[in-house]
């Protein structure tokens, strides 16, 4: 009698095999060299800690070249983009990212304009409502001409 694995167990083993294979895939990703472009995607989002207002990929100093190398090393070791950013923020402060990571600061940065816009819209709506309620609406002018002022059209006609 041929000894066969029951189909269920065979499937389970196959699953285990594939699972193991998938788990090792990140290790394969590490052996692929990190290109300059991969580093630059991240360097574009980070700011040079010591130069005023320059992104890490535009900055030409030795220091920035060293930090781009550090990014490459970290990416090679398998860190995700967010992890690299977090390392930089932890070491150099919030100023190295274009939009603060800290939620309170982010609320300050992005929240304030939104609040202002909201209140401006409310003020605008209230103002228009007030105008509607005020004196009657003037009758719409008849002019559909492309010249602004009806008086001017009249005068121009007279002058010709």
């Amino acid at each position, binding site marked *: 009698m041929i000894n066969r694995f029951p189909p269920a167990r065979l499937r389970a083993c196959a699953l285990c095999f594939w699972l193991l294979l998938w788990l090792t895939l990140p290790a394969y990703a590490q052996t692929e060299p990190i290109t300059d472009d991969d580093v630059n995607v991240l360097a574009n989002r980070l700011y040079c*800690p*010591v130069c005023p207002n320059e992104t890490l990929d535009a900055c030409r*100093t*030795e*220091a920035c070249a*060293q*930090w781009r190398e*550090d990014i490459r090393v970290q990416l090679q070791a398998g860190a995700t983009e967010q992890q690299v950013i977090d390392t930089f923020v*932890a*070491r*150099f*402060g919030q100023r190295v990212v274009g939009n603060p990571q800290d939620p309170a600061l982010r609320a300050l940065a992005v929240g304030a304009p939104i609040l202002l816009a909201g209140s401006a819209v409310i003020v605008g709506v209230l103002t228009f409502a007030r105008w509607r309620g005020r004196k009657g609406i003037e009758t719409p002018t008849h002019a559909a001409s492309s010249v602004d002022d009806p008086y001017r059209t009249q005068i121009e006609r007279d002058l010709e």
Partner: protein
Amino acid sequence: MTDSDFLQQIDPAPEPIRHGGLSVGSIVLITGVVLFAAVIGIALLRQQQTQPTSGQAPDFTITTFDGQPFTLSEQRGTIVVVNFWASWCAPCREEAPLLEALWRDYQDRGVIVVGVAYADLDNDSRAFIDEFGITYPNGADIGTTISKNRYHILGVPETFIIDQNGNIRRFFFQLLPDSAGGDDDLFVKIASVRATLDILLAEAETL
């Protein structure tokens, strides 16, 4: 005004209506503008703060690369040479052997040299320390709070000499004059670090 202007001018506005005091809106507006200007003014004053050159040295605590804590205020009774550096800073490479030599000569005379790594990643800092065989304590300024917020440094290297009572006595901007690349300015002669230390130590002995 010219005649044509007179003829062209729009009919003057209707009789102005006089109210009592200023409206609430106006008061809010003027207060708002004043507050706004005040905030900008305060920001300007804070931004203009420069390196402290006298008085009590701002305290700080760092963890050295060997894992030991180092607190400035615990060093009373010793002269402290605080040197802000970074691995990516070219002049710091020239200073490093000098500071190490200084440390070896003065460590038994009551002077401690401590390096604070500004805006530097640990592996880069350690590589720098190994390259120059530095033995005095060094630690990283995490988040650049010590360098920027307390000592207001403009860049590296900058060195502060703090006496036994915790007061700042000398401040060296950029490269130490003892180094080969020394003087950036035209005619200025700056007393060297060693000379300063000798003076401070002599002062302590006379007390």
